[in-house]
């Protein structure tokens, strides 16, 4: 009876003993109870650690006790059980601390903590179960032990919740029991064998196995909250917060999912189950539950009910992962078991904190909670983003593996499910995050507890922070040795043995080159958190991009594209930071602005430096999400609507990108055929197209830029938009394969955007909108050139430097134009500096048009030369100059009107002018020659061609001619196609409304019918029992005598 047989038993017994001991401690002995609880949790964790280390280096742990004639009570510590045991052990410790804080002075705590530790004991037992019978024993014990937890408060709601919980779990338990008994009769002792037990058992008739599988899954499905059996989960939210945290993140729900994993892998074996056609059924149910859960979550106002429905959908990911018969999907499913646990428990802790300290239960009451409880809400936000699947937090990892696994198993519809559910997750989590951080507190808190030193009791605050940190760490260090991901990979490799693919290169390494560049900005970011340091930090912000700038010039020179992009981003971030110093001085919300300014800077620089897909997406997401507050900064109505459009489009692009990159990774690693996959390319184009202002996807741009403060809109236009282009360069198969079917449409879209944007922009009355439209039109050119590269890959070698050059030129020009808008007050006529300032405006404008000697001309020349194989391209390029001149002319008109309008007396502010000068200088062409070593046409003289000049004259001519005409025309709304999209959106919500209240009425009808049925059955039973009061036992006895007589004698 050495350690290897006793350890699993100890791990299970320890929490149970603690439970019993706590039950015996009288109510008032707080210290004893607290020490028992925490001591027990720690001891169990220590034991689990011992078990973990043992299993890792190959030891086998098994406790085997005789239970029934030929079935044993087996506790076996294998890899899969350890995943779940360590999760529940760890989260048990945190939930205990949390519960101690939560129940400071409430009634019958001994009872609560007793059943609490018994519940964890049952979960650990369930995880360590070595055969299906032991699993069943702990599964049923779990129901019993969680009942008092749900009914803890004792009020009507929780009793009703407990009753519903019981009805479901009892029926589930009974179904499971029948299934297990039937299976035992057919297949003897049901020990879990790693590649499936039933596969090699001879002579089992398949129809029986299918029915049994259905019974088992129905039984387990109740706890795993699969679709028809999930109704108990939201209702049991009436339980106190630690209970719902434990139940939904760790114990009950995971038990069901874990059970499904055990049955599918260790009893049926994945191959045997899939060719019995069972896994398809499970996959469909799981898929439907995912969508159904998210949809229901949308309409819940109570925070915990919304989280409950989100749990319903999230747990089905695990079921989905197991059901897709592929090794990578299994890893996805298994790792989600841990990740969802971490994220969901954080969410529930925060919900509990809100309820406990502020008395907030409804989402509508949560406005401005961020200010009152910043740390809790920060944890909530991290976990919420994790649930949506934003990299690098834990949720993304599991969705990533599920996506790749779905492709591996050719289950394309699963990708659809993942996309839709991420969209739905975003649509029910983001409004909460928006309400927390960006809305003011409109009504007093319902039941506010006195303000302590911290925002709430430390015991309530610490657990969510730690679990949030774990959720982040698990995501970030996913591919490290001891992460749950590697552990699930180990499990999956044991399940699949033979056909386990090499997954090292789809692992998420988040490796980014020259990470030292980001150190300074991150330091500043942490400094921002402390109120006292804020003032000093703000002054230091312009220094942040400097290391990047130096790096770009000196260090980063092996990859030309990366170097030039880094140079562009760093330079403009530096100038914008300088500009912002003065521009934001008297803005009351500047702390928030600077906070998100730095985060976006980190995101942007990170994207440029990213080495491979995972880090690219992570920084891309970071940049796009943190840009949202910059747009929202002025809090005006247009800002709000612009910001919402922006965030919606960002979410859309994130999802499309996710699908595209999943496809790319899969086909790059595993597919055999060489030709590039069209749909992957389209998704990537659309994904980055949103950011890069592809024709129909650009609608957010003209709305967002004018609204943001000048430095932000400059950055948006000049730098952030270029990331889309960088994405295309990195991920599209440019230069090595031609995809004609995509090339033509891209070129068409590109040029139409160039011309239409120009015309539309010219009619605008806001200077910044005009600039935004000019960005759209310039981007049109880039899109067209990318299309050209797709059409004939051999030209890519020449085209790449041209595109990069054009991007840099546009960046600097557009940035300086935006900065000039800021100086409009100083442009009043008659001041001695004004002509010099007008020069500042004209230089970038003309360089955009492409006049000789300007960077624009150089870029266009390079482009013309690279696309020489197709003359139409260069003519269109030249024609685009007309459009740009139109826009620039309109811009100058507006600037003059602006100058006359607010001709304030203040003398021009030097600290504003200096950065504008800097950026204007960059627009001159001679700066570009050295870094790009353009051979033949690098000389400035090549820009002196006639074709660069005549479009400008025609443009200015049109401006003057149409001046009066344009005055009369009404100003078209900013986001042109947006109206169409909004109409479409309102249409879809209307139809959705119709469907919703249709099934609501159906549900109502069904309830009414059930009510009648119930009443009818009660009355029948009452009438029946009245007659059948067996008042005639005599006759009955005689009748029985007769029947027995008959039975015996025949």
């Amino acid at each position, binding site marked *: 009876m050495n350690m290897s047989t006793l350890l699993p038993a100890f791990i299970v017994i320890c929490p149970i003993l603690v439970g019993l001991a706590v039950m015996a401690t009288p109510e008032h002995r707080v210290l004893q109870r607290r020490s028992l609880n925490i001591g027990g949790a720690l001891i169990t964790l220590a034991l689990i650690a011992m078990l973990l280390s043992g299993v890792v280096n190959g030891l086998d742990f098994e406790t085997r006790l005789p239970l029934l004639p030929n079935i044993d009570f087996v506790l076996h510590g294998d890899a899969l059980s350890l995943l779940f045991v360590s999760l529940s052990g760890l989260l048990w410790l945190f939930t205990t601390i949390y519960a101690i804080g939560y129940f400071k002075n409430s009634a019958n705590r001994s009872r609560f903590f007793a059943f609490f530790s018994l519940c964890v004991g049952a979960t650990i037992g369930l995880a360590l179960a070595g055969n299906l019978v032991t699993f069943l024993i702990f599964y049923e014990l779990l129901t019993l032990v969680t009942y008092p937890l749900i009914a803890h408060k004792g009020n009507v709601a929780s009793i009703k919740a407990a009753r519903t919980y019981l009805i479901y779990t009892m029926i589930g338990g009974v179904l499971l029991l029948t299934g297990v008994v039937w299976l035992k009769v057919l297949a003897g002792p049901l020990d879990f064998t790693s590649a499936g037990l039933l596969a090699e058992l001879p002579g089992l008739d398949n129809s029986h196995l299918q029915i049994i599988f259905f019974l088992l899954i129905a039984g387990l499905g109740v706890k795993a909250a699969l679709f028809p059996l999930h109704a108990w989960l939201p209702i049991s939210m009436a339980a106190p917060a630690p209970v719902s945290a434990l139940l939904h993140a760790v114990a009950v729900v995971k038990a069901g999912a874990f059970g499904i994993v055990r049955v599918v892998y260790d009893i049926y074996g994945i191959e045997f189950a899939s060719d019995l056609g069972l896994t398809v059924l499970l996959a469909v149910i799981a898929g439907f539950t995912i969508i159904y859960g998210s949809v229901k979550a949308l309409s819940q106002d109570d925070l915990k009910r919304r989280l409950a429905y989100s749990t319903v959908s999230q747990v089905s990911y695990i079921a989905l992962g197991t059901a897709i018969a592929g090794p990578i999907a299994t890893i996805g499913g298994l790792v989600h078991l841990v990740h969802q646990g971490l994220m969901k428990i954080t969410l529930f802790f925060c919900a509990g904190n809100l309820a406990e300290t502020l008395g907030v239960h409804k989402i509508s009451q949560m406005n401005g909670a961020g200010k009152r409880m910043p740390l809790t809400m920060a944890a909530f936000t991290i976990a919420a983003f994790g649930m949506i699947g934003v990299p690098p937090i834990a949720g993304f990892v599991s969705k990533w593996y599920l996506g790749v696994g779905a492709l591996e198993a050719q289950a394309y519809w699963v990708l659809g499910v993942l996309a839709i559910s991420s969209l739905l997750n975003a649509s029910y989590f983001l409004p909460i995050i928006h309400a927390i951080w960006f809305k003011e507190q409109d009504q007093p808190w319902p039941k506010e507890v006195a303000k302590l030193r911290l925002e709430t009791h430390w015991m309530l605050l610490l657990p969510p922070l730690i679990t949030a940190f774990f959720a982040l760490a698990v995501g970030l260090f996913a591919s490290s040795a001891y992460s749950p991901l590697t552990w699930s990979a180990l499990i999956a490799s044991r399940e699949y043995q033979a056909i386990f693919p090499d997954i090292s290169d789809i692992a998420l390494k988040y490796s980014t080159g020259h990470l030292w560049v980001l150190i300074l900005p991150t330091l500043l970011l942490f400094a921002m958190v402390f109120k006292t340091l804020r003032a000093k930090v703000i002054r230091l912000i312009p220094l942040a991009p400097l290391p990047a700038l130096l790096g770009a010039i000196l260090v980063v020179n092996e990859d030309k594209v990366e170097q030039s992009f880094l140079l562009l981003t760093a330079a403009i971030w530096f100038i914008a930071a300088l500009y912002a110093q003065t521009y934001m001085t008297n803005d009351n919300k500047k702390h928030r602005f600077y906070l998100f300014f730095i985060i976006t800077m980190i995101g942007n620089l990170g994207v440029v430096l990213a080495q491979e897909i995972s880090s690219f997406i992570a920084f891309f997401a970071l940049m796009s999400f943190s840009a949202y507050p910059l747009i929202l900064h002025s809090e005006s109505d247009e800002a709000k609507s612009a910001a919402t459009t922006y965030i919606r489009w960002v979410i859309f692009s994130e999802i499309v990108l996710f699908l595209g990159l999943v496809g790319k990774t899969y086909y790059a690693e595993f597919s055999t055929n060489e030709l590039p996959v069209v749909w992957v390319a389209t998704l990537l184009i659309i994904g980055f197209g949103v950011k890069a202002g592809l024709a129909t996807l650009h609608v957010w741009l003209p709305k967002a830029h004018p609204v943001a403060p000048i430095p932000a809109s400059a950055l948006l236009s000049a730098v952030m938009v270029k990331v889309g282009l960088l994405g295309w360069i990195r991920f599209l198969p440019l230069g090595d394969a031609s995809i004609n079917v995509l090339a033509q449409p891209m070129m068409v879209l590109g040029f139409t955007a160039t011309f239409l944007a120009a015309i539309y922009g010219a009619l605008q009355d806001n200077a910044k909108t005009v600039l935004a439209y000019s960005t759209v039109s310039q981007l049109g050119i880039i899109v067209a050139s990318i299309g050209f590269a797709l059409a004939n890959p051999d030209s890519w070698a020449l085209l790449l430097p041209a595109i990069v050059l054009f991007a840099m030129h546009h960046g600097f020009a557009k940035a300086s134009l935006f900065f000039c808008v800021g100086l409009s007050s100083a442009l009043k006529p008659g001041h001695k500096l004004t002509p010099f300032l007008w020069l500042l405006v004209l230089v970038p404008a003309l360089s955009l048009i492409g006049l000789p000697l300007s960077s624009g001309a150089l870029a266009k020349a390079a482009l013309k030369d690279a696309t020489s194989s197709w003359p139409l391209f260069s003519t269109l390029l030249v024609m685009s100059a007309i459009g740009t001149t139109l826009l620039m002319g309109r811009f100058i008109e507006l600037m003059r009107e602006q100058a006359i309008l607010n001709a304030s007396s203040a003398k021009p502010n030097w600290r504003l002018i200096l950065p504008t000068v800097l950026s204007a200088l960059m627009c001159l062409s001679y700066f570009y020659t050295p870094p790009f070593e353009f051979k033949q046409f690098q000389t400035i003289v090549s820009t002196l061609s006639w074709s660069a000049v005549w479009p400008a004259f025609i443009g200015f001519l049109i401006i003057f001619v149409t001046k009066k005409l344009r005055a009369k025309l009404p100003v078209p709304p900013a986001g042109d196609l947006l109206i169409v999209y909004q109409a479409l959106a309102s249409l879809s919500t209307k139809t959705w409304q119709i469907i919703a209240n249709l099934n609501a009425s159906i549900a109502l009808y069904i309830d009414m019918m059930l009510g009648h049925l119930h009443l009818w059955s009660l009355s029948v039973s009452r009438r029946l029992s009245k007659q059948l009061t067996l008042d005639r*036992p005599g006759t009955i006895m005689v009748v029985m005598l007769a029947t027995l007589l008959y039975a015996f004698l025949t």
Partner: protein
Amino acid sequence: MFNKLDIEYDGPPVDKSALSLIASVLVAGLLLAVTITIVLSDKGHNTGLATVITQNIELSGVTNPVTAVLLNFRAYDTLLEIAVLLVVVLAILPTRDHHTPFFKRIEVNKQNLVLSALQCWIAPAVVIFAGYLLWAGAHQPGGAFQAGALLAGASVLLFQSDTYQINYTSPIARVLLVLSLGVFITIGTALIWFEGSLLTYPLAFSGLLILLIETCATVSITLALASLYSSFIANENLSITDNKHRTIE
């Protein structure tokens, strides 16, 4: 059949619901017919244990085969049967101890001549006859139960005139009631010690032991049956001691 146990029921003796009546008559008839045909048809074992008993009669210490069966061959049954009687006595006797003497004679003013005459003549005769019955049990039909029943009859006669009043809860009464069971058990277990197994009478003393058991049984049975009878009388007038003021009719 047992649901309507209302004592005050003075409705028709047989509840008239036709269904149950017809059904029970029919089936009872059927039951009777079937059992009779079976019993008649089957010869079955014609002599039962007669031969075996006659062979072992001399070993039993008594000549009357019934007494031999009752008190020797199947002594265990008789023991349990006395226990049954004790159960009922315990169930019926009032629980509170009235601390009145075991046997009390009450001077009653108006005497019923015929009754008192009968009592002084018949009671002693019955006692002697009961003694004879007890003694004859060894070789003729008779024995403890018959003697006990007879004595109980005599005690009923004595109670008629309410001149004698026995307090069954007094210590003596309790000892006497429990006497037979106690003696039987002691003898039974003692025999294990002597003879090696329960209730195996030594050949020489079996007759004597049976007689001893019989006498104790008679005493206990008399007292038990007397107490059963007097419990009904006592209940009639709500047991004298309960409400002092009530006069004896």
